[in-house]
């Protein structure tokens, strides 16, 4: 199971949309697919547009750029989709970006936060915030809220997403007056972090920023506690999966990360309805990835409706001026950068659950960036 792509079709009586999911971060793709299917089944989101049913075609991109490229090609050439939803992760999105750009089919990344993704061209969009800002607000939280003055960064050097976040955190933390003592590298697939952690113990920073995926972070934090490290660990939206709690156990208590959504921060009517219905159906709260997948679906369907025709070019135009109340809040697309302005939700692992720590509005984040000159 991997990333999802969502395709949406040509002049045929159907409107297929592709969804790219899955892979190393299998949890994300699975969550996205299940959430979209659930929202459609309960009638929370439209299942027809322009008087025709929306047909979704899923493709597992296995969190691999090459696989995502293959998936995008297949969705466009064989399935004749008019739009693509996905992927979840930035790496695979970049793999597919050139292909959708050349074919002129809009692709809306669901949680692809790397700034590089939308820079490929006007057909590349995202439904989430950008890592430039995510790194800055994490640095703000570390410096202002947790009162840290020194930090060590642990970064997964094979993930563009992680490397980007580390860069922006470092810049912002330094600009705020803090000091980054060291940046240590790990790689996707590593399981032993004791060497890096022993080095961190020697440096003794106030906070550890580890903007990697839950797949590696949970084990790392466990080993950190086993080695006696007591510093809080800060992360990014890559932590937002139940696996962080299941694998991390009590060790991840107090870990704080930036993400898109929490049940206690829902403001829009559709968000409240999604939360209530989801809770009723599954007995637990939806995660950010699930909320974001539904948002991406809503944004795309709204763009197709406003375009008036199921034509990729018209959809691209409509999507670049999107302004819609979705599950995670109001989302206004910037027509030039194709990055929407979004609020930042900080979650903390508390008693085996993700609890809301605080919310930093999109406007406040912008002001913060201006203040420290970034």
């Amino acid at each position, binding site marked *: 199971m991997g990333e999802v792509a969502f395709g949406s079709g040509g002049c045929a009586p159907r409107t297929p949309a592709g969804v790219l999911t899955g892979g190393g971060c299998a949890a994300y793709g699975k969550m996205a697919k299940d959430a979209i299917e659930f929202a459609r089944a309960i009638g929370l989101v439209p299942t027809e547009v322009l008087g025709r049913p929306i047909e979704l075609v899923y493709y597992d991109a296995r969190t691999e750029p090459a696989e995502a490229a293959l998936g995008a090609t297949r969705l466009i050439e064989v399935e004749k989709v008019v739009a693509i939803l996905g992927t979840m992760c930035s790496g695979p999105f970049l793999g597919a970006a050139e292909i959708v750009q050349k074919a002129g089919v809009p692709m809306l990344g669901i949680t692809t936060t790397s700034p590089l993704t939308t820079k490929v061209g006007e057909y590349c969009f995202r439904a989430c915030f950008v890592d430039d800002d995510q790194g800055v607000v994490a640095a703000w939280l570390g410096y202002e809220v947790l009162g840290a003055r020194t930090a060590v960064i642990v970064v997964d050097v094979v993930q563009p997403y992680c490397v980007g976040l580390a860069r922006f955190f470092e810049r912002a933390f330094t600009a705020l007056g803090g000091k980054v003592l060291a940046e240590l590298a790990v790689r996707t*697939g590593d399981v032993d972090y004791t060497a890096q952690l022993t*080095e961190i113990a020697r440096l003794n920073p106030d906070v550890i920023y580890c903007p990697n995926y839950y797949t590696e972070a949970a084990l790392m934090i466990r080993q950190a506690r086993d080695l*006696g490290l007591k510093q809080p660990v800060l992360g990014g939206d890559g932590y937002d999966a139940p696996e962080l709690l299941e694998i991390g156990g009590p060790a991840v208590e107090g870990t704080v990360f930036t993400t898109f959504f929490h049940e206690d921060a829902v403001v829009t009517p559709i968000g409240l309805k999604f939360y209530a219905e989801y809770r009723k159906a599954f007995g637990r709260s939806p995660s950010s990835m699930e909320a974001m997948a539904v948002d991406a679906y809503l944004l795309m369907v709204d763009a197709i409706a406003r375009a008036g025709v199921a034509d990729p070019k018209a959809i691209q135009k409509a999507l670049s001026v999107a302004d819609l109340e979705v599950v995670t809040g109001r989302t206004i697309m910037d027509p030039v950068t194709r990055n929407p302005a979004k609020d930042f939700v900080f979650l903390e692992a508390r008693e085996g659950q993700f609890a809301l720590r605080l919310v930093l509005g999109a406007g406040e984040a912008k002001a913060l960036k201006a203040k420290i000159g970034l």
Partner: protein
Amino acid sequence: MAPYVQQLFNGLTLGSLYALLAIGYTMVYGILRFINFAHGEIFMFAGYWALLWFAVLKFPWWAAAVLAVAITGLMGVIIERLAYRPLRHAPRISVFITAMGVSILLGNTIIVLPDWWAGGRQKPFPTPPAIMTRIFQLGDVRIQGVTIWVPLIAIACLLGLLLLIYRTKVGRAMRAIATDLEITALMGANINRIISYTFLVGSLLAAVAGILWGCRYPRLQWDLGLLPGLRSFTAAVVGGIGNITGAMLGGFLIGLGEIAVVAFLPHLSGLRDAFIFAILILFLLVRPTGLLGKPLKEKV
């Protein structure tokens, strides 16, 4: 000083896990002259078997672990029976490619298994008894229980294996097969049975490594066997492929080397794997027989 002592223990734990896995690789190679590339996946499967017995069927931890080891051993025998035995007289490259196929098949089997047991998402490994996870503190150095147990178990496995190979009838037959399969068959030994034993022992070793690995790194994932498999294979080559004591030595060297790269050159920590595989290439170029291996005489 304390950080270096800590790093030494970090390296020893990792190294002994590699050693345990490398012994399995090298044993099958020593007897059959064939790298079992599915070894890493068999190792991975042991963790999932333990999860099935422990989390799903609610067995006590020790029973789940023992059952998992036994089933994994059996799995190795079945794989040999179905995938390798029909190729006994095929060119070595066919067996090699089949082994890769088995490895991919086993990995993907985990992905399609139902969610309550396996699946594509990660699963937590059953929490081991306190004796494994307890932390011992000596000054500033912190050692996990596993750190003490793993090298002891690895050495016990090594001794047991040496005993099996040099002191039993089955072991003698294994050594005979290593020298010449056809002649051994002509002498009346049941080749298929001996080879089944070889795979049984190899898979049992992989399973023990898999369980201990889970105690130390409590996360199960379908491709869990890939990287440890490659690194242990490297350890087996460095130690002298086919030589069991060498594999043990190689495992410790690779584990300690990996930690040392990060400990002494923290800013190059991203190149950890590059160092390991550079060692592999270096050995293959300069000393292909490894530390303890004997040069292989080509049979005419």
